[in-house]
């Protein structure tokens, strides 16, 4: 271990994910996140804090929040706004995600009388088509989630030529790794593996095949400045909207030292 590495502060896994989300959002002017999405919100808030000196600060719209709500035209405005091209990034998850970037928020094992039923597709069947940078985010990285073929397509990963589509998946972030989505190929490529895991771990936990380098990169840790922002103003800001989540993250950070 080098001296430099020794002075690097220790990082909680969720801090690394939040910092990765911030990187994935780089260049966005307006990011929207769902009502119950504290990790994406944290990543967006972190990026905004990192860019506080820019003359065009990034907007963050948190659905269902009062404090982070720039919308005044009711529930339809998010979708209209996205269709107008005014939302650069949005996060989607899924009970199942397959190697072609299809996501399933509806249920597993048959339809309509699914063996396991999830809440439903929400806005995914629309937003995945019109938001340029869809980030698929699911912490649980298992063969239960990452399947060869989803049982129900809430939103397809790609569309054939001739189908209107200005957006789609760009990245997939999990508790184990970060992938990029190649829209032309309709496949994921492993970008980096989070510290402490191996390519074999990823393969074991993933039910679909994906492209990767022979020696995949390791997901970088956030630097000290970034961590300082995250543990300072970002965590404070987060606590206003997601008090429970912020408490949990703070406890995780405290446990590091």
């Amino acid at each position, binding site marked *: 271990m080098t001296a430099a590495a020794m002075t690097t502060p220790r990082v909680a896994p969720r801090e690394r994910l939040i910092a990765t989300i911030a990187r994935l959002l780089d260049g966005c002017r307006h990011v929207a996140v769902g009502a119950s999405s504290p990790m994406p919100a944290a990543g967006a808030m972190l990026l905004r804090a990192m860019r506080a000196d820019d003359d065009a600060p990034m907007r963050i719209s948190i659905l269902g929040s009062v404090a982070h709500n720039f*919308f005044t035209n009711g529930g339809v405005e998010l979708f209209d706004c996205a*269709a107008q091209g005014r939302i650069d990034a949005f996060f989607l998850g899924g009970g199942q995600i397959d190697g072609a970037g299809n996501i399933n928020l509806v249920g597993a094992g048959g339809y309509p009388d699914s063996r*396991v039923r999830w809440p439903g*597709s*929400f806005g995914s069947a629309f937003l995945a088509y019109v938001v340029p940078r869809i980030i698929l985010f699911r912490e649980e990285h298992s063969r239960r989630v990452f399947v060869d073929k989803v049982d129900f*397509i*809430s939103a397809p990963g790609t569309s054939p030529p001739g189908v*209107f589509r200005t957006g789609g998946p760009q990245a997939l972030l999990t508790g184990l790794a970060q992938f990029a989505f190649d829209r032309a190929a309709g496949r994921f490529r492993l970008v980096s593996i989070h510290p402490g895991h191996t390519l074999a771990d990823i393969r074991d936990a993933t039910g679909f095949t994906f492209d990767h380098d022979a020696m995949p990169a390791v997901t970088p840790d956030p630097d000290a400045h970034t961590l300082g922002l995250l543990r300072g103003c970002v965590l404070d800001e987060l606590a206003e909207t997601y008090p429970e989540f912020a408490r949990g993250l703070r406890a995780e950070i405290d446990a590091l030292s």
Partner: protein
Amino acid sequence: MTRILDIGGLGRLVRSGSKVAVPTDYSGVSMAMTWQMLRDGCDGLHLVCVPAGGMHADLLIGAGRVATIETSAVTLGEAGGAPCFMRAVSEGSVRILDATCPAVHAGLIAAQKGVPFLPIRGLIGSDVLANRPDWRVIDNPFAEDDDPIVVIPAIVPDVAIFHAPAADRAGNVWIGRRRELATMAYAARRTLVTVERIEDGDLLATEMSAAGVLPSLYVDAIAVAPRGAAPYPLWGEYAGDPGEIARYARAARTPEGFRDYLAAACAEAVPA
């Protein structure tokens, strides 16, 4: 002319078999009317969630009052999945019309505009579309090349039901920026609203207050129901009670637990 009734009178205006539109959890759910409908015994409902359902939808489904649910999702948010909804869908005891949020809005806006349909992007290639034979794909008549586009038929609820902070005596209702509540009312044949309070002034009197008003023209009847959205929050009025929603989520995991919760809650929520 908007009638001002008590909650019992409002409940009697909902008929079995009606298509009922209700808002999403943070928008102004009338839990007061949910309890009243559960007491009144109307059933065979076609529930339209605008655009997603929560505890209100789950309660009506659990009590067997819902024949069809048309929604982009049903969830208890932080408290997890909606147990009765998930059970009923898996058992096939409720007909599910899976949608996506903007498609629900599009159907209501079509009704608002008196047009038979509204076009919407997205959806093509999804199983949401594949399972909605009542939706259609047409060719964009303005495109030079092939450009398939989904069209959503108008959704005309028999009744729209929601909760808002205030109304005036003429029946104007303050909805603030929750304009989907207005869309529901425009689209519906009849609109029933519970409010925290009825104010003496005219909500249309100043430009400031008028901007957030659903005019009485679209409101058939109102009843006062203090804390009528609880345990859901009401914007600008009170926070939600996630503990109560979590308690419901635990209870409703079994049909027996649901039955007990329902009996206790109905008795408590509506004093005789």
